């Protein structure tokens, strides 16, 4: 069984890291729409793919994954917005867990947004 001791070990390990993280700040924000429209369209696996993928890719220090309510474009859910310092917001639409993994690899790690998944491509 997962024990409280394990949790305390995590605490010890993280206390050293916290000061570091605070000074680095979060450069990139990944925001997933999680209202009824998003949830019904499959936002939960998309969110979890980002949460787990960002951590596995070692990007947790500069990428923060958060949730929001209805963005107002329900027909395009699941919607994911990526805010990056000094760059234009990128809005990905009709996402799924597979596309999320690609976005982590190519956009968050590689620095190149995947234009065919964006709202611009979807509304063409």
């Amino acid at each position, binding site marked *: *069984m*997962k024990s*409280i001791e*394990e*949790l*305390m070990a*995590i*605490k010890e*390990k*993280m*206390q050293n890291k*916290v000061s570091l993280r605070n000074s680095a700040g979060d450069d990139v924000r990944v925001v997933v729409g*999680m*209202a*009824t*429209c998003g*949830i*019904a369209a499959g936002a*939960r*696996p998309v*969110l*979890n793919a980002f*949460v787990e993928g*960002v*951590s596995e890719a070692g990007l*947790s220090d500069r990428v923060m*994954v*958060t*949730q929001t*309510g*209805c*963005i*107002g474009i*329900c027909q395009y859910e699941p919607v994911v917005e990526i805010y990056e310092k000094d760059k234009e917001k990128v809005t990905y639409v009709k996402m799924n867990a597979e596309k999320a993994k690609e976005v982590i690899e190519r956009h968050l790690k590689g620095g190149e947004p995947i234009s065919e998944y964006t709202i611009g491509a979807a509304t063409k």
Partner: protein
Amino acid sequence: MEEFSLYVLDIVMNSVRAGAENIDVSLDDRGGLLTFKVTDDGCGMTEEQLERLSDPFFTTRKTRGVGLGVPFLKMLAEQTGGDVKVSSVAASESPESHGTTLVATFHSNHIDFIPMGDIKGTFVTLIQGNPDVNFTFVHETDGGEVRLSCAELKSVLGDGIPLSSPEVLAWIRGYLAEAYEEIK
């Protein structure tokens, strides 16, 4: 929505958006009757809002004019022979003690009921998005009980380490996986 766990996620989000600090979620799924209960200390609803709660064309949000969360839940409950009851005390009327309680019942053996789905995923998602909220999750099944209290986890971790940090989330995911394995 094809999984019951998604209804749970959607309904509990209402408590989050009501600004609740403490949210108790319980699922009592024994002997073919499922009772889903959410109690929060959020801003609550006035009598008028409460009356219109199952009206899909009523919502307080600004981004769109429909609200389908509660109507969806009600439809599912009623098609299995159950129902949804909501009581609420608005903060505007009772600043000291306010909040909402929702109780939904379902006959889980009914042909129109749907699979539970990834309920662990729902709990983890709620914690990830709202690390400051004190959630308590209790899931009772014929095989035993799974319980998780965010307040207890926070008292171990102390200040400065949010429940949403990747290491802590991984622990929670592992904890839930093992707990559900035991009652399978």
